[in-house]
């Protein structure tokens, strides 16, 4: 969700502490043809193809939201540092409280992962965006990499304020009856329960290698899942597919479950738990 003001407001009212917008680019994009999303046994496979109305029209949605004081993290994707900088400045001027640079979408040609696998490019884009803006900048990185810790370090060198991990895992589903991939784009990104152990490992590795906060995402469906990420080193978490598994109550339920666990285990402050799995 999170492509329009109404949806972002609704999710916030369901208990989210902040909202990450859909990834927004310079020009409107319709995304890939359907099928774009299917459910598999243990997760969700999607190839949306970065649909978005373009930063200009998206600005109207954000301006509408500004009155409501909802913390907004504006997610952006560009093909090069120039595009990222232009998008970042616009997001900031529309009132975003922080930025998330999408360098990890696994299925969009010329964007996302194609940029986010190059350490030098990641450093350069991050530092250019940092120079051009005043709000915190997070870099979202992909699990589909051998050098995930190096990419995180490059973002840190570019002065990123935090690392977000992970985006979806590159995947495919073939239908036996039709003997063809189900997604129109053939290749998609896997999210939901199945990818949680992959995300936890990535966050663990990144936390060990950088000195900036890590935001954990990938398959978090329960408070216990969130705590696992926190123990691996995440200072905050994001929730996507759990909206499907637990509907919009997911936010409140996960927060409640974290609190109950902490109470049962004698913790008062969640920061005591960040990265404890490393000792």
């Amino acid at each position, binding site marked *: 969700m999170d492509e329009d003001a109404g949806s972002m407001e609704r999710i916030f009212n369901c208990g989210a502490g902040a909202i990450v917008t859909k990834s927004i680019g310079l020009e409107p994009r319709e*995304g890939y043809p359907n099928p774009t999303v*299917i459910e598999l046994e243990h997760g969700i496979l999607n190839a949306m193809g970065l649909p978005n109305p373009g930063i200009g*029209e998206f600005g109207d949605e954000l301006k509408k939201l500004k009155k409501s004081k909802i913390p907004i993290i504006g997610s952006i994707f560009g093909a090069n540092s120039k595009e990222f900088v232009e998008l970042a400045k616009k997001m900031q001027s529309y009132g975003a409280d922080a930025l998330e640079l999408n360098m990890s979408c696994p299925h969009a040609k010329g964007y996302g992962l194609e940029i986010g696998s190059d350490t030098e490019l990641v450093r350069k884009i991050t530092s250019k965006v940092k120079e051009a803006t005043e709000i915190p900048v997070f870099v979202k990185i992909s699990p589909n990499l051998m050098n995930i810790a190096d990419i995180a370090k490059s973002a840190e060198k570019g002065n990123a304020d935090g690392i977000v991990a992970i985006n979806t895992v590159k995947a495919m589903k073939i*239908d036996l009856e039709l003997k063809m991939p*189900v997604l129109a784009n053939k290749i998609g990104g896997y999210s939901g329960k199945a990818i949680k152990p992959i995300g936890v490992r990535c966050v663990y590795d990144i936390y060990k290698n950088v000195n900036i906060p890590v935001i954990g995402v990938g398959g978090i469906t329960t408070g216990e899942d969130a705590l696992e990420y926190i123990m691996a080193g995440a200072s905050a978490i994001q929730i996507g597919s759990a909206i499907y598994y637990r509907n919009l109550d997911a936010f409140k339920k996960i927060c409640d479950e974290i609190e109950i666990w902490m109470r049962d285990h004698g913790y008062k402050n969640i920061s005591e738990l960040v990265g404890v799995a490393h000792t």
Partner: protein
Amino acid sequence: MNYPKVTKMIEGKKENSDVKTLLFEYPEKTHSGQFFMIWIPGVDEIPMSVSYITKNVKGITFRKVGDATKALFNLKEGDKIGIRGPYGNGFKFNGKKILFVGGGTGIAMMVSAVEQATKKNISATVILGAKSKKELFFEDRIKKCGAEVHITTDDGSQGHKGFATDLAEKLISKNKYDLVLTCGPEIMMKKLFEICGNIPFQASLERYMKCGIGICGQCTVGKGLRVCEEGPVFDGKTLKNIEDFGVFKRDAAGRKIRF
């Protein structure tokens, strides 16, 4: 699981030159007003309301408007399509005397609603509105279930000349209905909503859909209501707070398009 079930089309029936009904084996329990995501392999996956409901066989009825509906139109018996669903909430028949207003292609899903309602001994009055006689369909199916049927055409080629809403206004002023149900062009539904005043009201909305299961955010209206999940049927109380209703929809990129 929300994965397309691949099935063979078992029967196709032309309703008029541009409208066709396809039947397929699909035993999932389905209520009128709900919809399926229909996958035409190699072409597209599109939302389609249920128009025919029996225990084992379900049907869809659609107008040929673009690539996907043309491909469906040309489907041969035995050809394979993928189906997931049913999705959405469907109509709720609260009342003993219901007015149904179907406009254009909206007639397609209205007919299964009238059939379900009359089976429950609800007194059904139905207005079918179309541009002209040759765009009408399902008149016979609706008459067969014992409903009182009125036809309106913009050009007067059949039934009353004028809009469905004009006739609805007349009927409402003379009769007391417990509920008004509608599906059709959104401008028509908005007008009807205004005419209905305090009469309980339900309208089925159409928005561009991708996932159909409430996660992609493509189909939202108002304050984040997902047409695929909390809709497609919304009641009057909810519609009052949906500022988009009758004003704009969004295209595949999320851009606003005014009606």
